[in-house]
């Protein structure tokens, strides 16, 4: 008697059934369970890449809802960090790109400091650039749109992202472009009919050649004939003449097509590729300087604390209004409010706590204790700085005078993680 009987079936009979049932259950679960996958790719970048390379600021999306064929403008500034990370190749050649899920929107134009951004350009360390990217809706959907800087041998450096919804009908999309010969063409479908026609012509000729041979007994009889030394009889005069005819037709079609194409398109240019040297924005006078005494990251409390000395060499009193790093913004609400249309997930709710929160007068050096506390250090994976080859925090401090003139100061310092509650910051 088989001790593994289950309801009269042997183990050999039930195991495949169990396996089939399991696979069926997995398949059903795979079909009904998953939801839409949405990821913030910038969070996958290591923290040092986001803090010690490019700082994006003033990023603005002209709209978060547009229809197919309507335009969206992404604009702002980016600052190339003066103390570029040693682990990254320097920005000797960079390209202003945009991060969208493929060509769901087309890039109509882009510019850096008003210069056409279609070419790559070297970037200077410690300098600022203004950028504009104009997009046009093409495929309906909801997309996360980021400005992006591609740096040769370093990779993609993502800026802040905002959700943009494209509505309408994808079939209504048009992309008219004027050529120098005076014609207007729609790049969505341009030349496709001719391409498909030529491909079909060649596929038919190829099929004709194959069918000529496939109509004969193919493999086994021919193989046997060769094994018996009768391979020479397998190729007949008719085969050779047919081959010459096919080759002749092929050459005629190729040459004829080439000549007629040159007649139809007499003016063509080769693919263009170049790079430019785009000058940065005029350098802002450095009337404010910051030196760091100590910067720590209290991991359990998700808090970064700065002990710094700020010297105001300008002519007006200033207050610290904002600290931004890796596209995340910490705002001192008593000085600066966030823009209504800026993505809320990139603004730390607790803001920036500055002690003492008072103006720094001209000529004065003041010691500040600054606390930037937010779960965003963890949700944006910036806390993983501890696993990076460069344990330095970088960012931009923004000071404001009574006339709301902004002063940008780049900040860069070693940062030490703290794990023990004894070193917890006050009030946490």
């Amino acid at each position, binding site marked *: 008697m088989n001790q593994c009987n289950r309801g009269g079936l042997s183990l050999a009979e039930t195991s495949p059934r169990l396996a089939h049932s399991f696979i069926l259950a997995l398949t059903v679960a795979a079909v009904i369970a998953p939801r839409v996958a949405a990821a913030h790719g910038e969070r996958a970048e290591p923290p040092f890449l986001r803090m010690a390379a490019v700082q994006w600021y003033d990023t603005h999306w002209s709209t978060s809802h547009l229809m197919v064929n309507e335009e969206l403008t992404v604009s702002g500034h980016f600052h190339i960090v003066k103390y570029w990370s040693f682990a990254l190749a320097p920005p000797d050649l960079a390209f202003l790109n945009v991060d*969208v899920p*493929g060509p769901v*929107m087309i890039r109509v134009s882009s510019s850096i400091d008003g210069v056409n951004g279609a070419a790559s350009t070297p970037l200077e360390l410690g300098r600022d650039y203004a950028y504009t990217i104009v997009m046009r809706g093409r495929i309906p959907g909801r997309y996360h749109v980021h400005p992006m800087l591609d740096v040769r041998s370093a990779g993609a450096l993502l800026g802040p992202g905002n959700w943009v919804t494209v509505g309408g009908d994808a079939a209504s999309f048009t992309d008219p*472009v004027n050529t120098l*010969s005076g014609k207007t063409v729609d*790049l969505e479908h341009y030349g496709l009919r001719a391409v498909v026609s030529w*491909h079909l012509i060649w596929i038919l000729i190829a099929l004709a050649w*194959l069918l000529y041979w496939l109509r004969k007994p193919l493999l086994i009889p021919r193989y046997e004939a060769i094994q018996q030394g009768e391979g020479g009889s397998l190729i007949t005069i008719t085969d050779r003449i047919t081959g010459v005819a096919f080759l002749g037709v092929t050459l005629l079609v190729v040459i004829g097509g080439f000549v007629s194409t040159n007649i139809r398109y007499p003016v063509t240019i080769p693919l263009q590729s170049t790079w430019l040297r785009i000058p940065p924005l005029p350098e802002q006078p450095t009337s404010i300087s910051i030196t760091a005494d100590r910067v720590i990251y209290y991991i359990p409390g998700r808090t970064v604390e700065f002990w710094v000395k700020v010297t105001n060499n300008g002519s007006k009193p200033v207050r610290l209004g904002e600290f931004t790093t890796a596209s995340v913004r910490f705002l001192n609400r008593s000085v600066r409010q966030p823009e209504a249309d800026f993505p809320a997930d990139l603004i730390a709710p607790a803001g920036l706590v500055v002690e003492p929160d008072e103006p720094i007068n001209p000529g004065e050096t003041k010691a500040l204790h600054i606390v930037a506390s937010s779960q965003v250090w963890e949700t944006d994976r910036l806390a993983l700085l501890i696993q990076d080859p460069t344990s330095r925090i970088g960012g931009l401090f923004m000071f404001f005078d009574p006339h709301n003139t902004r002063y940008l100061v780049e900040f860069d310092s070693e940062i030490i993680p703290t794990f023990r509650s004894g070193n917890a910051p006050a009030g946490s």
Partner: protein
Amino acid sequence: MAAGPQARARPALETAEERQRAYRQFDIILAILIFFLFMGLYHIVAMLTVGDWDFWVDWKDRRWWILLTPVILISMPAAVQFIFWEKFRLPFAATLLTLCLVVAEWLNRVINMHGWAYFPLDFIWPSTLIPSGIALDVVLLLTGSYILTAIIGGGLWSILFYPTNWTMVARYMVPTNMHGFLMSIADVMGFQFVRTGTPEYLRIIDRGTLRSFGQDPIYISLAFAMFSCMLMYMLFIGVGYLFTRIQFSWFKRV
């Protein structure tokens, strides 16, 4: 009641008609399997080597595209041509492979790059090597010599690539003025249809030396492609020879 030795001694195919029918069925089944096998194999070779130069219209330049495509892709036709000719005297290996490649490429472009990634088909259409394949096959048919096929057929394989595909690519090289830059339509398409992994500086087009032979580098590329194709053909004929020595024992048993 056991089947005796006498029953096993009778052949399965007794008449000539039965044999012909069985051979034909074997041909059809094998042809279908080989078609899909070649589609997969040759397409993977093309994607991993020629890659971007064939994916995008703004990579179809006058140097690398017309050099790399024929030189790399003559490899498999050379090896398969040896097998088909040596074992079956069938001169259609190159044509079959190039046809399989075009079908596989169109499937990939339509389903994957257009259907999934939303790239317009006029930006991602593949090039074709079918005329080159026909030329290679016919030269082997007429000469019966691998050396002559390498020299004449290999030369034709490379030379025919550019004029064949120029009929399709020429319209994309029409100039436009794009915000103050002179750009071809292909360049504009590359700029507009965003590829986050392909910044402008990554596009390897028209880079190289040997620029003192007139303005157009096409002739240099074609000449180099021609000689390289001849060498590649001879090399991969050897691969086909090794394959037949190692893998063909099963066919003998059939």
